């Protein structure tokens, strides 16, 4: 399963005025990896496709919020 959200660690300087943000995340949607869509990609069931917002699992990219995840844990 492709990871949709990746993270990196910015440099934290001792002179930073504010409390540092240790890890920052960014979205990597499917189209970054998929150029021209090939034929015959496998598909979701129609009912699931409606919920997921796309017919092809390869193109599924949930725009999750990194903040909600922290809140939920």
């Amino acid at each position, binding site marked *: 399963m492709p990871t949709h959200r990746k993270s990196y660690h910015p440099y934290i300087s001792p002179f930073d005025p504010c409390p540092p943000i240790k890890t920052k995340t960014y979205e990597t949607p499917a189209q970054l990896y998929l150029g021209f*869509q090939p*034929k015959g990609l496998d598909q979701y069931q*129609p*009912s699931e496709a409606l919920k997921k917002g796309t*017919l092809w699992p390869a193109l599924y990219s949930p725009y999750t919020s990194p903040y909600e995840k922290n809140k939920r844990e």
Partner: protein
Amino acid sequence: MTETHLPKAYYDMLEELQTVDFVLVELNLYLDTHPDDLEALKQFNTFSKKSRELRDRFEEQFGPLDQFGHSYSSYPWKWNDTPWPWQV
């Protein structure tokens, strides 16, 4: 006006129609860039036929879905009849 609740079948059929139409939207956009994909074209045609059947079945029971001639209407004119789209 007696308070009438919509039968559950109303929502089930609408959701099924929405599901089929979503697949049609996806396939339509896909076929715009892949005109020679026979598999997708066959799937598109079967789903559009299914959508038309669903639409007809729904309209027989609950009245017209589209206007300006895209749907039939029984007597009397049903188009401005409740429930309105935002009430569904």
